[in-house]
């Protein structure tokens, strides 16, 4: 691969990663703050990147800020808020076309880096806090985001399941917080939380693009002043404990198709084997779940698996008619038993390994995806590149796969049940 990757510690809990390949026509720059997910601060944290990504000290008006980006060849600055195990990740990200495509010879890359660092460290303020009007609009949007979590039934079902699977752990919380915490936010409390994050959160700065970001390291040091920061505590990986008894839960909504999620905890310490288990069970169109539950038995429209390695949880996610819920559940569990018993064909195994190898190589063609890969893994202390991880998965034996499957413990069965089977009412 022609991709060069380097991650450097700048001090004060700040890391800077550069992913470089001359083939990339666009550049991506991202500042990510990592902090413990807690119900008290989730809403405040989640609103912060949405405020920071809309203006900055030198462009305090959102309209002017946006006009400036539009004129910079439609460069984008956008916020992100996600969950990584028990942590909340907050990001301000930007993309721009490479300097070699500038029609008037502009230094687009340098300007993008300047803008994002200014957004994060020198936000637009009013009376020493976030401007009241902008803040109120963002608070309103956060409330809408919480209210509209129900719109996407599949992700809503996942969120409801997570609350049960991780009950009592930080990971159980929504990254948006609750309606109550969102409603209670003020410009002052959010600004104080922002100051805390800037001085105490882990900070990962990532560049991925086609041209070396000259001077970026100095700019980051100048913006964050690592020497003045309180060194944040290390990120702790805390697998979710296995429940003594599995839990069943359901919600009812007026939807046509039910969503069923089955969650399992795994005890296996063999991460490559768990990755392979996920692929063989339900992460490809030739997986056991797709082939049997969907194709052969027509029990679900979709039925796939995913794995949360930080919390050691495997999810099976399905869209199913109410009358087929029990049959689908039985078949999903039967397929897990098949893997435990070693009833995995050579072609199933090699298909899963080939799929892993292919998707590992594909990361290199997408700078943003590669940045995400390195971020997620470096947080967990893993420095392998996608191909090295793929090689470890490909070396997993059948016995290791069986052991990984045998380590699964049923945790939660969640059903988002439709009220009836009739369609929605047109007016």
């Amino acid at each position, binding site marked *: 691969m022609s991709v060069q990757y380097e991650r450097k510690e700048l001090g004060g809990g700040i890391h800077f990663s550069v992913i470089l390949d001359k083939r990339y026509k666009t550049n991506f720059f991202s500042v990510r703050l990592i902090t413990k997910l807690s119900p008290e601060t989730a809403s405040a944290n989640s609103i912060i990147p949405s405020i920071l990504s809309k203006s900055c000290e030198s462009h305090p008006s959102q309209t002017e800020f946006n006009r400036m980006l539009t004129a910079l060849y439609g460069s984008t600055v956008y916020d992100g808020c996600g969950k990584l195990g028990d942590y909340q990740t907050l990001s301000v990200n930007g993309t721009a076309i490479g300097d070699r495509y500038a029609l008037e010879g502009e230094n687009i890359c340098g300007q993008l880096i300047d803008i994002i660092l200014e957004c994060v460290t020198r936000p637009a303020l009013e009376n020493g806090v976030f401007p009241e009007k902008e803040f109120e609009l963002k608070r309103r949007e956060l409330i809408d985001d919480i209210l509209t979590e129900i719109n996407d*039934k599949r992700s809503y079902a996942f969120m409801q399941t997570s609350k049960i699977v991780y009950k009592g752990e930080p990971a159980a919380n929504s990254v948006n917080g609750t309606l109550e915490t969102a409603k209670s936010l003020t410009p002052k409390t959010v600004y104080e939380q922002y100051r805390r994050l800037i001085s105490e959160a882990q900070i990962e700065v990532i560049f991925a693009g086609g041209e070396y970001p000259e001077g970026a390291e100095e700019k980051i040091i100048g913006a964050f002043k690592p020497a003045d920061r309180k060194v944040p505590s290390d990120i702790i990986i805390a697998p979710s404990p296995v429940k003594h008894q599995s839990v069943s839960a359901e919600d009812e*909504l007026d939807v046509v198709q039910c969503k069923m999620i089955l969650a399992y905890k795994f005890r296996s310490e063999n991460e490559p084997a768990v990755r392979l288990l996920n692929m063989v069970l339900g992460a490809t169109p030739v997986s056991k779940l797709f082939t049997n539950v969907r194709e052969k038995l*027509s029990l679900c429209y979709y039925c796939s698996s995913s794995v949360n390695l930080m919390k050691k949880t495997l999810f099976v996610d399905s869209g199913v*008619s109410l009358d087929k819920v029990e049959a689908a559940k039985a078949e999903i569990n039967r397929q897990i038993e098949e893997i435990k018993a070693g009833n995995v064909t050579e072609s199933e195994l090699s298909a899963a390994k*080939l799929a892993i190898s*292919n998707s590992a190589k*594909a990361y290199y063609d997408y700078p943003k995806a590669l940045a995400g890969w390195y971020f997620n893994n470096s947080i967990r202390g893993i420095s392998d590149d996608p191909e090295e991880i793929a090689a470890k998965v490909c070396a997993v034996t059948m016995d290791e796969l069986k052991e990984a499957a045998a380590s699964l413990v049923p945790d939660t069965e969640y059903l988002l049940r439709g009220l009836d089977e009739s*369609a929605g009412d047109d*007016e």
Partner: protein
Amino acid sequence: MSIVNKEIISNERCGEQLVKLRHSAGLTIMIWKMPDYSTVHALFGTKYGSINNTFKLPEDKDFTVVPNGIAHYLEHKLFENEDCPVFEQYAKTGASGNAYTSIDKTCYLFSCSDNFYESLEILLSFVQDPYFTDENVEKERGIIAQEIKMYEDNPDWRVFSNMLSGMYHTHPVKIDIPGTVESIGEITKELLYQCYNAFYNLDNMVLSIAGNVDEDRIIEICDRLLKDGRPVSPICSFGDEPDTVAQPEVRQKLEVAVPMFNIGFKLPPVSGLEGLRADITAKITLAVLAYEGSSFYRRYYDEGLINSTFYTDVFSGDGFFCPYFGGESREPHRVFSAIIEEIERCKAEGLDRESFNALKKSLYGSAIRELDNVEAAATLMLNSHMDGVSPFDQMEIIADMTYEDAQKMLCSIDTSKAVLSIIEPKSEEEASDE
């Protein structure tokens, strides 16, 4: 069999070059060599989508009307191979295969890092080798019915689809791509073969490949696997669509918390290069009116009438052309009035010139970004060919576009031909919370 025509298409502005070949079997082959990339993306597509439900062959007297959703059903069924399901074949090469049906095309595709030529053989073979039986057609009905139900619960899809159903009287773009549970109940293997034979002939198809590939090996595989058939030119009817809207307002209640809206305007359809020009001009015009840097956006965002979900887009194709606005709002009727008012104001006073210039650069940036991966490059080639334009025309149209073009486009929007589609919450309580 082999290549009867070869054209090299290049663009100095972005420094890119691709090859367009015409195979003697009738197929157009487009290849974009991207030697530094790890993956290859290939699409094999036919100009046949959900709107092509009324057609005849040149020798036929009458049009045949087939059940809605049949193009999508056919796509599902082609994945059934007599010997071995397609996904299982791809599993042996490690390729990630998929397919999709849109309004006006059906495409079969794969991405891979290794074993590209073996995967290409699979793609070319199964798409040219239909295998429909009463049993396997019946079996798919349940799966597709589940997919239809999933769409029925999806408010993003419903709000858009309802807008189209309000806009068009007869044009089949108003019909959902997968059809309905009832319409797919009428699909038989005979109908599937009839549609396949009309639209899946190589003259109506294109193979588009981007990545680190060897042109000669692709041609060798095509020579070996392409089936020589007689050219078929199906004639489609989209009905006699009046220029009025069918229903100015469409409302539906779903499980959402905040009302969602789409507001669209019916414009006369345009095709070919002029169609692409109109599409891009309409995109930039709507953006000038209401992008985040506009006075319109600022005013109504500050008032809380719209939020950051607000967007503009253009939906155009064979016989339809619809610029539209969308987002969430507790007062969709007020958004509708505000948009109409802004359009009329800008018709009289003129669009903001500075925003036009900035958005032109922005659109150019988007076009460059579209060339940054093999998937986007292969898809761009396929779409361009099916639309009768070159993949680089978009970039040149943007470069040549003037402020006057955008103003003219704005003036062509007749605000009396508008449709407001609203998805309302089932529970009024949720919408008015806080």
